[in-house]
């Protein structure tokens, strides 16, 4: 593939901690990806719309507030509604182990909790984006 992978890195919900998102954004950039960084406090609607306008291959979201069970699936559903279910959705942040199976079930392809080496996230995105 000649073109760079395009990833929207987003912070849904109300928590203001974007260090993790920024670290991931930088790592993805250094892996040769084009990272569209949206900033804090985005609604699921804003994130889905951004992913569509930017023709993203992947949406990577970070939540530290505990609202992941509500907000992550909402983004997946909005993308489906807009006919954009070929966009890979991954999530990260402070997410209890018990919640992960439910999130995967809801269509979030991968969940990366604190301590995950950035190379794991990078490889996961490279290997799982649906459009070549």
């Amino acid at each position: 593939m000649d073109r760079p992978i395009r990833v929207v890195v987003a912070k849904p919900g109300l928590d203001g901690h974007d260090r993790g998102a920024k670290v991931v954004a930088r790592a993805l950039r250094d892996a040769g990806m084009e990272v569209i960084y949206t900033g804090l406090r985005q609604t699921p609607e804003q994130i889905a719309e951004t992913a569509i306008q930017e023709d993203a291959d992947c949406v990577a979201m970070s939540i530290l507030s505990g609202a992941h069970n509500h907000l992550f699936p909402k983004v997946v559903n909005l993308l489906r509604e807009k006919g954009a279910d070929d966009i890979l959705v991954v999530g990260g942040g402070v997410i209890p182990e018990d919640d992960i199976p439910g999130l995967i079930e809801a269509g979030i392809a991968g969940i990366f909790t604190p301590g995950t080496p950035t190379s794991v996230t990078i490889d996961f995105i490279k290997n799982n984006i649906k459009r070549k």
Partner: protein
Amino acid sequence: MDIKAGLLNNDKRAAARLISMMENGEPEAVQIIKECYNMTGHARIIGITGPPGVGKSTVTDKLAKQLRKEGKQVGIVAVDPTSPFTGGAILGDRVRMADLNNDPGVFIRSMGTRGALGGLSKAVHGAVKVLDILGMDYIFIETVGVGQSEIDIVKLADTVIMVMVPGLGDDIQAIKAGIMEIGDIFAVNKSDRDDAERTAAEIEAMLDFNRDEEYRPPVLNIIARDSKGIEKLLELVEKHWEYENRSGSYKKKKLNRVRAEIMDIFRDEVMKTLYSISENTNIINELAQKVMDKQMDPYSAADRLIDEFTNNQRNN
């Protein structure tokens, strides 16, 4: 997905995909643009440029919001630099435009410079055409603000707003790098800072010094964060547009723009052919070896390559 049908149906997803295809230089994308070319020419194109950190994204955001109040459809192409080392990029202009994400009358596209031969200007050309076909009334091109390729992109615009801030350095900075030549309107942002009036006065003085044309670019103090001066800035954009049309300078500019575009596309095709010659034959290596061995000079080698190129064109 049928991209062309989607585009004509105002489907944002199709438009977004087409922009990527143009960016990646896919021939199918060019074909679609060819077929829809007659639909371009509706949108007003506004370039926003200036040094890093002066508030270009914020100015764009506020101008877009003002135009939305007037019911206009707004497209934004925001360019950020690509790392020449990894090919990656952080495209962060959306951070300042967060409230526009959800507005159905707005389409924002972020773009990395990617650094390929003239590639950016072609990609921006492509994105602007797609947004034009999509029916946008205004299209903003926001650039990184440094370097020759930026100036090329800005030349795409009907009106160029040069954003500056107080305290960027002495007036010598303003003489550098063609800044004064490309602005149609100068906006001194962050004008709640000290020295805002002085910065504006310095720009005025530079303009007196540089220009002998009939149109004198206006200089305006604004505070984009607080939306101060934004309405006035839009008025100046309209005034510039009126002047361009009245004086016939728009037609001249547009003709030059199309000329430059044809030459760009042509150059691109020539380079593509040249690359395929170098991939399919060993001629460039052989010529290089001859030049190395002093059996030939590089100028004659290039002449040989031109012969090869012409033959190649004839055979195709």
